[in-house]
């Protein structure tokens, strides 16, 4: 009897929220308007461009060439986007594996962020595939290219998205008021976390390993056999900087969804994360230095690409690292946020240097993304933020779980 009552309640609530969707998508208050004014036309334009892309082929809206077959949609959307989604595996590792309880309040939002990043940026991969109707081929087993790095990355992506969905699913169950599902899904969290971390470490490094065979195409300052390790280590501070940045924005925008306890914990969390960022960035710099010496790369430094490399390493790794150290000591939240933004710029630079800027750096005609590729990329990001906002405003992500969920173990 109880069960059927739940089902009815659940169905009702579910229906209610779907109807709510349309009214909620409209500007809700003053703070929403500027974002919507920018994002709506870009999303609409992006949809139009996607139609053209499927109608006339990839060449119609991209500047891709036979020599540079991967452009902005891979180099930024996938490779850079996934690095920023690295926060999810780092934070779940800290909270569930190392039992650092004081970071618990940011787990859900970080996992949600990670899941959406994967869903959207790898979803954007479908736009880049020339023959997307065959995307299922490496999954269903008629053609396993097991010797391919991309095959491993694809599988680890798909499984990781599943793991993240399981990690996040208790929040969905709480939103729908489904107690039984909540109990089952909560019980799966640890398993999902363990597999999620394993899968993450492999596909974060795998994205770097994709470029191992482009040995003669990538500038030597960014190519080495250690790209996978460098990508893995940098995904740690890339992800955490994203957590700091996103937390700052969320706490301004979604203040009504946050309880007091979380609000108070937030500064302590940011403070703690800054230390982890600083230490991993130090390890990353040491690695980069070893790779640099190992590759006998001194000869490249006195060139435009060399200066660009120094700018990335000093301006956007060394300086934010020192800022993180400094602000950890002085507990200055503002400089931590500044350092996080600098770090994020550095990660974008690094990923684009490997995938686009340093790729075929010596070619006579360089690949520069067309404005249409940029608009589609922005449309994907804005759509993701819309979905993120939609979920935050409904599910217990930033705030407290309903009281029954805490007892329902």
């Amino acid at each position, binding site marked *: 009897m109880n069960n059927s009552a739940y089902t009815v309640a659940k169905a009702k609530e579910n229906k209610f929220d779907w109807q709510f969707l349309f009214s909620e998508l409209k500007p809700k208050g003053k703070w929403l308007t500027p974002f919507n004014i920018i994002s709506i036309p870009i999303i609409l334009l992006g949809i139009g461009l996607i139609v053209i892309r499927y109608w006339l082929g990839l060449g119609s809206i991209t500047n891709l060439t036979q020599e540079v077959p991967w452009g902005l949609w891979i180099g930024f959307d996938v490779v850079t986007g996934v690095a920023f989604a690295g926060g999810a595996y780092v934070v779940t590792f800290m909270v*569930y594996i190392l039992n650092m309880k004081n970071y618990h309040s940011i787990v859900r939002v970080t996992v949600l962020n990670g899941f959406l990043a994967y869903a959207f940026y790898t979803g954007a991969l479908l736009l880049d595939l020339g023959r997307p109707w065959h995307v299922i081929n490496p999954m269903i087993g008629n053609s396993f*290219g097991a010797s391919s790095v991309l095959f491993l990355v694809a599988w680890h992506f798909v499984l990781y998205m599943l793991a993240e969905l399981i990690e996040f699913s208790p929040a969905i169950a709480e939103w729908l008021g489904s107690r039984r599902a909540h109990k089952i899904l909560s019980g799966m969290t640890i398993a999902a976390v363990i597999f999620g971390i394993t899968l993450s470490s492999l596909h974060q490094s795998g994205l770097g390993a994709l470029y191992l065979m482009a040995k003669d195409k990538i500038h030597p300052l960014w190519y080495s056999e250690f790209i996978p390790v460098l990508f893995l280590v940098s995904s740690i501070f890339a992800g955490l900087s994203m957590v700091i940045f996103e937390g700052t924005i969320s706490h301004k925008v979604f203040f009504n969804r946050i309880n007091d306890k979380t609000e108070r914990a937030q500064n302590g969390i940011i403070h703690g994360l800054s230390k982890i960022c600083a230490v991993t960035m130090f390890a990353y710099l040491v690695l980069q230095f070893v790779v640099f010496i190992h590759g006998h790369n001194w000869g490249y430094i006195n060139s435009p690409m060399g200066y660009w490399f120094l700018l990335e390493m000093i301006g956007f790794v060394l300086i934010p690292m020192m800022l993180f150290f400094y602000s950890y000591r002085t507990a200055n939240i503002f400089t931590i946020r500044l350092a996080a933004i600098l770090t994020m710029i550095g990660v974008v630079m690094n990923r684009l240097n490997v995938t686009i800027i340093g790729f075929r750096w010596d070619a006579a005609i360089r690949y520069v993304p067309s404005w249409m590729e940029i608009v589609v990329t922005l449309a994907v990001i804005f759509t993701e933020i819309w979905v993120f906002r939609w979920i935050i405003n409904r599910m217990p992500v930033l705030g407290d779980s309903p009281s029954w969920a805490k007892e329902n173990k």
Partner: protein
Amino acid sequence: MFFKVLGATGLALAIGKRTSAKSASKSEVEFNGVLYDSTRCVGCRTCEYECATAHGLPAPTDKIEAVRKTDETCNTVVNTFQTSKGEVFIKRQCMHCNEPACGAACLTQAMHKNETGAVTWNGDKCMGCRYCMVSCPYDIPKFEFHNTNPKIQKCDMCFDRQTKGEKPTCVTNCPNDALMYGKRRDLIKEARRRIYEKPDLYNDHIYGEHEVGGTGWLYLSPVPFEELGMNTTLQQSSYPALTKGFLYSVPSVDLLLPPLLLGIYAATKNNHSKEEENE
């Protein structure tokens, strides 16, 4: 180094073992190839026209320039270079590597090194990711960017003719015997014989014997290959080997990391009171 250590662990595991056994049996297949002798090539471009006809591609343009490249409408080009020994022609097409980077890159096995030696593309498997293009050291796979059902175009060494026991169409139609089709080992012997008999005529280098771990197409030339726009700085070992360390480390990480994490989880959990872990 990190991946090599992990890779060694991975090799000991079942998956690694299977992969290495597979590659060992594959290397015993004797591939066919083509020996191209640029001292015999007169630049008539018959091969280009015959190739286009055989593959249903548009006829090549009349002009012959130094740096034409193959593209999505043209699988082979003959270029001309002014060198230290006068005008030299050079035919370019897919090299049909012994261990092709494109084949290792392909996640659907659409790019495949056949036992005949031809590297071919299968449109029923390809999802158009273009990772083959990123990986190929010769930039050979070409993509139809302006097609809604795009194909990867490249020389297939006339695979359908090969399976019927015929030679590739460019070899059959070459009027000056610049192209020779056969088992790769025999072609290398033949190339060595030619260099040995006429040391003044040939530059002492068989391009493709060792480049990227050996290619199906082998080149002879009167001048060093740099003068003909060929990349002579490519590594002498196979391209897929570049990713092997990483690939072999994957099974070990997949199998060893979860128990490690579980152990840490159990260890830290016991330190705390009976607070609930999962929410």
